[in-house]
């Protein structure tokens, strides 16, 4: 269908190889390694203890946190849990695949022993009586939750400025936003405050901050990871995603949390392949390791309105893929531009319903009032932030009698179109690529009073949520702002439940990308030692 409306064109990016502006001054930096696999080796060989490891991370967290403010809560039992791991190692007990791994968890993912506020004042000090399924699975694999990361309230925002508590800074430039809504989780991994982290992605909330912070962000297929314990924003779009400093780490973390859950009726029963087994070391790759892979570059994502530096980074990523043996062509997704309005209608509609439970009756902030409607009104008015209120109002409007057909129903029809155009493009291509955001990280406050411009920044990511597809964002280059280099991420999209393919391509891409180091200056010196 697509080929009839467009002429696929073979793109050649000869000698347009990736320009990494932020290169290490003396030597070529090595490709990123999996922290999870490295520490496992060190722990098992007893080179390092889990307590020492945890201590190192906690120290770095303590030093960087005043600048970054990526955590809303830091666990006070990290060292105790690390001691327990050391005991297990000493006694040669069986160790899970995430043993000793320090994980940051986005604050909208429930943890039974820590507050879970979803970044909202209405849930201040709320402690759930249960762990989210994803958290439970990580813990079972031996992970240590280091703390809860900052976010835009209920996931509604693209900058983390919308948190009810604090503004998180981008580790690359403290005057810039880390992206959002999982800005805390992205910044924490970027600044090596934790090894990996969980985020959630409703319209790009894992992928855009991954791009802004120069880390790997993985949004799985809808249904791959249980949503049980994820504070709902838009139920039909929400997924829990993973951040890592390498593709392998994101993949290993995803593997730990994936799979059917009887507590989430929308979680898939599809088998979870062993994502972890394919992370071949870079020196064992042949010269064209991705030979024959068909890559479609989404034309609509490299057109006007997108930062030229971003476009050249993505074209550079395309040429890098070609060097690896891929065939790269431009593809068009005709319904692409419709995705954004459809997304904002559907997400707002669902959120207006999902957030009804914050009524001050059973938990959370309650304002004492003379009568019921005042109790509701004042509890919600005081507890919810302005962006959240705006989306609740929009969603309530879109679902109202007389407007439902014009908004909600039409948006659902657009969703079907989006899904179909992706299907057609992915019939022709193994993966699709695009930027993860139209620009690099922008200044704190820059879009604070311009919500429409902030919403427009989600153009690259929302379609993927509407289609429920998996997507991987990994750093591919830098743009040079006035003083510092800012990372740029490329987004790779595959058909549903093909995370394995994305991880394989992403890993090879990352391991063969020359001359780039995605460690922010804030911690680069410390890590170099």
């Amino acid at each position, binding site marked *: 269908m697509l080929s009839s409306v467009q002429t696929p064109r073979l793109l050649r990016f000869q000698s347009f190889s990736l320009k990494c502006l932020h290169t290490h001054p003396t030597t070529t930096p090595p490709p990123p390694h999996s922290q999870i696999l490295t520490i496992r080796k060190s722990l098992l060989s007893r080179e390092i203890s889990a307590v020492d490891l945890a201590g190192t991370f906690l120290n770095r967290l303590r030093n960087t946190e005043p600048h970054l403010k990526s955590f809303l809560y830091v666990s006070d039992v990290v060292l105790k849990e690390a001691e327990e791991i050391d005991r297990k190692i000493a006694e040669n007990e069986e160790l899970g695949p995430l043993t000793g791994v320090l994980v940051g968890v986005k604050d*909208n*993912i*429930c943890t*039974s022993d820590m507050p*879970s506020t*979803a970044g909202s004042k209405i*849930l201040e000090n*709320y*402690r*759930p*009586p*249960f762990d*989210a399924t994803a958290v439970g699975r990580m813990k079972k694999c031996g992970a240590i939750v280091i703390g809860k990361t900052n976010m835009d309230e209920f996931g509604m925002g693209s900058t983390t400025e919308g948190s009810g508590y604090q503004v998180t800074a981008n580790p690359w430039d403290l005057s810039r936003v880390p992206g959002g809504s999982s800005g805390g989780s992205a910044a924490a991994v970027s600044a090596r405050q934790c090894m990996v982290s969980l985020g959630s992605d409703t319209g790009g909330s894992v992928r855009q901050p991954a791009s802004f912070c120069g880390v790997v962000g993985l949004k799985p297929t809808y249904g791959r990871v249980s*949503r*049980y*314990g*994820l*504070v*709902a924003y*838009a*139920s*039909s779009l929400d997924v829990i995603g993973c951040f890592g400093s390498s593709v392998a780490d994101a993949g290993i973390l995803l593997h730990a949390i994936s799979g059917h859950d*009887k*507590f*989430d*009726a*929308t979680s898939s029963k599809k088998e979870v392949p062993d994502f972890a087994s394919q992370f071949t070391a870079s020196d064992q790759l042949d010269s064209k390791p991705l030979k024959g892979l068909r890559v479609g570059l989404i034309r609509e994502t490299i057109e006007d309105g997108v930062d030229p530096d971003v476009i050249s980074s993505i074209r550079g990523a395309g040429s890098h893929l070609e060097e690896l043996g891929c065939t790269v062509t431009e593809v068009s997704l005709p319904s692409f531009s419709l995705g954004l309005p459809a997304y904002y209608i559907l997400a707002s*509609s*669902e959120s*207006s*319903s999902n*957030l*009804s*439970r*914050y*009524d*001050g*009756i*059973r*938990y959370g902030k*309650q304002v*004492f009032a*003379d*009568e*019921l409607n005042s*109790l*509701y009104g004042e509890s919600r008015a005081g507890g919810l932030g302005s962006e959240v209120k705006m989306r609740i109002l929009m969603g*309530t409007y879109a*679902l*109202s*009698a007389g407007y*439902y057909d014009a908004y*909600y129903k039409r948006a659902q029809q657009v969703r079907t179109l989006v899904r179909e155009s992706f299907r057609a493009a992915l019939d022709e291509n193994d993966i699709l690529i695009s930027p993860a955001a139209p620009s690099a990280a922008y200044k704190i406050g820059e879009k604070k009073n311009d919500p429409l411009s902030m919403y427009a920044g989600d153009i690259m990511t929302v379609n993927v949520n509407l289609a429920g597809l998996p997507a991987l964002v990994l750093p591919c280059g830098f743009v040079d702002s006035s003083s510092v280099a800012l990372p740029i991420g490329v987004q790779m999209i595959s058909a549903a439940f093909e995370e394995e393919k994305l991880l394989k391509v992403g890993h090879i891409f990352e391991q063969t990308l020359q001359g780039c180091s995605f460690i922010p200056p804030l911690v680069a010196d410390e890590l170099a030692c």
Partner: protein
Amino acid sequence: MALTFLRGIQLNPSMLYPSSYFARKHGVLYCCMRSAQTQTATQEKEQTKLKVSTQSQPKAVDKFLKDFEAVIGIETHVQLSTLTKAFCSCPYNYGSPPNTSVCPVCMGLPGALPVLNSKVIECAVRVGLALNCKLSLNSKFDRKQYFYPDLPKGYQISQFDIPIASGGYLDVDLPLEYGGGHRKFGITRVHMEEDAGKLLHTDGVDLFGSLIQVDLNRAGVPLLEIVSEPDMRTGIEAAEYAAELQRLVRYLGVGNGNMQEGSLRCDVNISVRPIGQLEFGTKVEIKNLNSFSSMSRAIDYEISRQVELHNQGQIDQIVQETRLWEEGAQKTVTMRKKEGLADYRYFPEPDLPGVTLTEEYVNSIRESLPELPEDKRRRYEKMGLSMQDVLFLANDINIADFFDTTTAGGADIKLAANWIMGDIAAYMKNEKVTINEIKLTPQELGELIASIKDETISGKIGKEILFELIAKGGTVKGLIKEKDLVQIVDTAEIEKMVDKVIADSPKQLEQYRGGKTKLQGYFAGQVMKESKGKANPKLLNKILLEKLNAKN
């Protein structure tokens, strides 16, 4: 989970909040709670009042109703007695202490998700088929949104535009005391939804003054909402429709249908129009109907109220509103006036996949359906039972089963019906027990009937051992043997006893032979006493007469 959860409640004392204003402003609601609490006390009075009102009210209504017709439709909520709630694994037991049967899902905690209990679908399909409905092979759940403290999520999971079943009917036989007759009432739709919690009102027990507390035990309990066509015309028809639904859910085993516990709740929509007018009048909804008789009385009251307003030229006083039936005052009062239609902003529930039924599944349920009340009544009718017997026996599934098992063993149909409706029913009523609680088995009732029929025992002895069987159990054969109760049919033995009685009563014999033949009863009684009740009465009388009338 329960333990963690208790901690959760303690951490959140906001379960209780001061609400003196709330109680006042929602006085009607308070009222509703109060009448529910005192329902057992009013229950007794209700019975006596019913007799008065059924005699007096219809007459008054009849006078008005000559020129008017009432149009009545009923929305019924049937609580399903599944082991666990609709979307979580909490059990539901009516009357448990508040908030002891709750979990993150039915409390609407952040991050909790509903997972459908497949038993709910099964119950819905059973009821849909029993109501002769068309089933939607692809239906879905929707969210119905409104704020209320007993609704934890701020929305109720329900079904909106695609109910699981629709377009059926229900056959009803009206009670004979109201003239009898058969009716067929249309069923618009049947859909699945979840129940809300309950508000508990407490007066000044605390420094806050009066409190409203929320009990979420009932939140998330599965319900079927059954909507009828506006086919009923009188209170009796409406009450009998509801009674038939109750019978149906009990026959199907999907619910206990207990109105007092709120397991079967009927909201009635009612309007009147001049006879011959096609369009409906303005409809009024009546709530708080705790029994079939209150339903019937509330409707008849409401009809006369509306007709009276018509007759007084005050049609504009009939407004679309919800009225509450007040059992004490025996009238309906305004609960809330509707200001336009409430906008529930329905949309498809994104947390639950669509509900898909296969033909095979539906067929397997269809095959597993028991005989339904209507089929049973028609079968009993064909067996030759009177309508009164039919209605009595088919009314209660357990009694019907008892009767069916008794007759399946070959017992005489009419005799079995008589025993069950007579002595057995009387015993159950006196002792306040159900037929499942008595010790008598259908097999032994059959045995008893047979033993009387073949004259092994007399009817009188039969009655005696019946009560023993009901109260203590055992077998007819065993009791007969144990108590030596076999009827005496030996002529010589009876003659001996007759001779002895006559010899012992020379005075009475003289009087008898002098013409006081009424004394035959005396002699018969004495002989029966002599035989310890075992003498065959026919034989006894025959021999006695012969001997009394014998000339010396």
